[in-house]
């Protein structure tokens, strides 16, 4: 149903689920999801609230103990998860937050490198609350990256940021992605964000993947490009929002 051709590489897929079901009480939140995300693929997951986005993400990150369900699920060993809030521990300095739980003698050096990469060199000794919202989110990104993930799961990481910071973070995330090439699953409710960043966009609807759309645009992407608008309108329609001129065609991948 929702298998995407993707780039044909030798590497095993970063996510493979088959007939994945998750239930809360009687309600089936995820209904037999078959999803394959290739290694190094940047995928965005859209959906209205209650469509099951967070449930899917938690299932993929293995944080949904106690939730009933069935199906098969395979993810790589190194998975990083980033949250809507930066979720830095307030009692650990920035560097200690980044390397939290990281073993090995070089952990601190790697943490420093990761912080430098997100533009936070020199802030290693700061307390999290001394950083701005955007800087906190960048520190969280460093914490995710320092683990060299094969799969990065991001749950609306820019949801709590102001518009200007958000634009900068989009650029940073794409840049880091291109340098490290993890598979990314970005959960968002911002259609523009999805089309701008991802090479493939999924729309989740009532626990099923309703749309699976490859975004074939060169990067960096301009939101004003006509083809950008085209993708955007198609996705908005799929989400039940009708953009100004209603496009008739609906993707039924």
């Amino acid at each position, binding site marked *: 149903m929702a298998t995407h051709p993707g780039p044909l590489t030798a590497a095993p897929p970063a996510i493979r689920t088959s007939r994945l079901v998750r239930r809360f009480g009687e309600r089936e939140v995820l209904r037999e999801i078959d999803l394959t995300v290739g290694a190094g693929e940047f995928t965005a997951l859209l959906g209205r609230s209650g469509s099951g986005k967070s449930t899917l993400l938690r299932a993929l990150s293995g944080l949904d103990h106690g939730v009933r369900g069935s199906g098969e699920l395979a993810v790589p060993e190194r998975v990083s998860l980033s949250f809507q809030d930066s979720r830095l521990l307030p009692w650990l300095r920035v560097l200690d937050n980044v390397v939290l*739980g990281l073993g090995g003698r070089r952990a601190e050096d790697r943490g420093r490198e990761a912080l430098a990469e997100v533009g936070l060199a020199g802030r290693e000794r700061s307390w999290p609350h001394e950083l701005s919202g955007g800087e906190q989110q960048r520190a969280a990104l460093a914490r995710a990256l320092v*683990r060299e993930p094969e799969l990065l799961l991001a749950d609306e990481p820019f949801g709590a940021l102001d518009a200007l910071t958000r634009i900068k973070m989009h650029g940073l995330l794409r840049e880091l992605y291109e340098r490290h090439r993890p598979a990314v699953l970005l959960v968002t409710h911002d259609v523009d964000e999805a089309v701008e960043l991802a090479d493939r966009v999924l729309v989740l609807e009532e626990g099923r993947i309703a749309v699976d759309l490859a975004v074939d645009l060169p990067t960096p992407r301009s939101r004003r490009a006509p083809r950008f608008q085209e993708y955007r309108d198609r996705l908005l329609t799929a989400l039940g929002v009708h953009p100004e001129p209603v496009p008739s065609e609906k993707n039924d991948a």
Partner: protein
Amino acid sequence: MSETLSRARTATAPPGTPGAPPRERADRPAPTGSGAAPAESARQGHRPRRLGPGRAVPFGRLIGPVLLVAVWWLSSALGYLDPRILSGPGTVLATASDLVSTGRLQDNALVSLQRAALGLLFGVLAGVLLAVVAGLSRSGEYLVDGPLQIKRAIPSLALLPLLILWLGIGEQMKVTVIALGVAVNVYINTYAALTGIDGRHVQLAESLRLGRWTFLRKVVAPGALPGFFVGLRLGVTSAFLGLIVVEQVNATSGIGYMMFQAQQYAQSDVIIVGLVAYGIFGYASDALVRIIERRALSWRHTLAR
């Protein structure tokens, strides 16, 4: 828009009033004339009335205590106070230096402090241990929390008769009474802090795949520390409360014993010296805990700045 409005307001005021500065007007009695009322409301519309307390005066807090001592001094100097009821400050100071020079005050204070410190030590250890057992495991919670919540409802001092029956009237009983009170305070607050660890932090720890030990060290312990300190401060208070009570029970040493003896001979000066000593102990120990707390929670300290 607002300019025309204020001009309209001044127009309704009778001549003479608009020029008066606001401070003067506030001191004046309420206007009784019919013409003054609109002018008053117009002026209040300009600047909101301050509702909070006024500016702080340096060392203003000392005014009350200093006044109290002054009244005490004056009334005993003028002979209003019978020395058998309450000795004057001069007598108290003389008695204190007397007690210090004979070594009686230090010896008794040392005994009292030792009791409080031992009770505090055992109480804190027991409180933390029980809180960790109850806070980190379900079976521990089921076994430990119930009895301790029941114990919380019974004041430690109510257990005194039983403890005297079991342990006699020696040091063992005294330290146990103090430790019981401390342990309950430390337990209640530390346990609440442990079970109140932010679920989002737990989720983070799981997503980072922290080991159990790292999780306890980096997430649980620092997260529960503020609650522990609340318990510790209450525990210190309760340690001195317990100390005062147990020193009234067949003690042969300690500040309480010294005061109890003075009561027999109507030496109100010695009793006051004892009270002051208790006060200094309580204040100093609380200040000490606050300093430790500030060190341990330095990340929080900068937050409040």
